[in-house]
């Protein structure tokens, strides 16, 4: 029922309770995603190879 009424954008639903539930679920997914991104980009295991890659690309551009 919730899926049918509120799938897609929130504007599609016309029952406030369903909309609130869906909105909460969606913002939770969003938060999870942002938390996941933050976990990755603050991981030294990511930062070290990432900055080495950036430095390598910069070196390539400078040498070209």
């Amino acid at each position: 029922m919730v899926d049918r009424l509120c799938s897609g954008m929130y504007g599609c639903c016309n029952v406030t309770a369903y909309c609130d539930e869906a909105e909460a679920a969606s913002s939770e997914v969003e938060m999870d995603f942002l938390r996941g991104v933050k976990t990755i980009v603050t991981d030294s295991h990511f930062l070290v190879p990432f900055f080495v890659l950036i430095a390598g690309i910069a070196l390539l551009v400078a040498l070209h």
Partner: protein
Amino acid sequence: MWERCVGSTVTGQQKEGISLHGLGVICGLTAGVWLGAAEAPTKLVNAGFSPFAISLCMVAGVFTARWTFPTLLKGTSYVFADLFEKKHLIVWALLAGALWAVANTLTVFAIRDVGLAVAFPLWNTNSLIGLLWGRLLFRELEGASGKNIGKVVLGTVAIVAAAVMLGFSTLHGGTATGHNAVGGILAAAGASLMWGTMYVPYRKAYLSGMNPLSFVTAFTVGELSTVFALTLALDGGLHSPSFQLFHQRGMVFWLFLGGFMWVIGDLFQQFATKYVGIGRGIPLSNTNQLWGLAWGALVFGELAAADHRHKLLVVTGSVVMILGALAISTAVASSKEQTSTNEAVLRECERYGLDYNRTMMAMAGDEFNTRNEKRRWWDYAIIALATGVFLWLGLRAVVPPLAMDVRWIAALGAILLLSLVAGTWSLWRRTRFS
């Protein structure tokens, strides 16, 4: 809880048969045999193509082969289930592929500007960089005895020195044609740093219990797309001469074959990284220099005109490399060192919400029957398509008029097959390719 977790013994390590250390050593050495042999087919393509063209074509072959092996051994259902279970590692796989591609392109600039004689020793230090990151980021060798640390560090230094000696033995006269010495040295040092750093994502993935077959499937996407982007950006855009090479069907097969052999070597290298870490696994697979030289000298007669000094370099380099590999092979991790590894695994589990026990089981190659390995119709289609591409190119392949010793091709080919059987059998028996 922490002590209980990290101190616990992994079920898989208690299994009978070959130890995980032994398995890692076999994989590392097999990787060396195949990575070295991968150079042989590319020697048949020396018709003045740009390095970008050679690199792009070889990576296209790598891409084709990379999707075939995981599909053949585990099936796409398994691979994608593994990838999506640890989605965050896809970022690291793409990052590793990009690092490889940029490093490979930097070597082109290094050779152009300072020549192979200067560039080669510099980028061969990548295993030392790997050793450093292994220690700093993954606590490798932490808690190891002084004897084991000595064996690993000296073994790595010996293999780097031997690779340099073997590299020099094939150089005749000055090969530098460039004008920008500082740029060339920076490019070679950059390639070393990037290749050494590329092992960080490898180790990260395996400490999280990912199967190397899944990791390479995502890795190759990062690799091919970066090589493609670099060719477009640095080698003339859509009208790059690199794309012309694909019309030379007689030549393309040899590069695809080189890529195919490289994939087999790289897969064993990945398993070595998983089972003995980057500090031990990478130097062992860097013994590829010895096998590359064997193919060059024995099959293509590259040392036929070598003087006494060059021959001495070959013998000394080979002996030093074998001693280095022997030192690393015998440096079995103690239980104290193993505890540090377990702590590194626990860090991953806590940070990314992974199940510690399951991850430890997967780390030990013990995840039998936990995932669907059933093949779907598209698995067979992928294998058929890739085989078809190789057959189609193979039928059009042209053997250039190069002098080759057929007896040595047979002998080295037999060693290749033998190492493949030994490596595959060991992996299958101990881990079912997990």
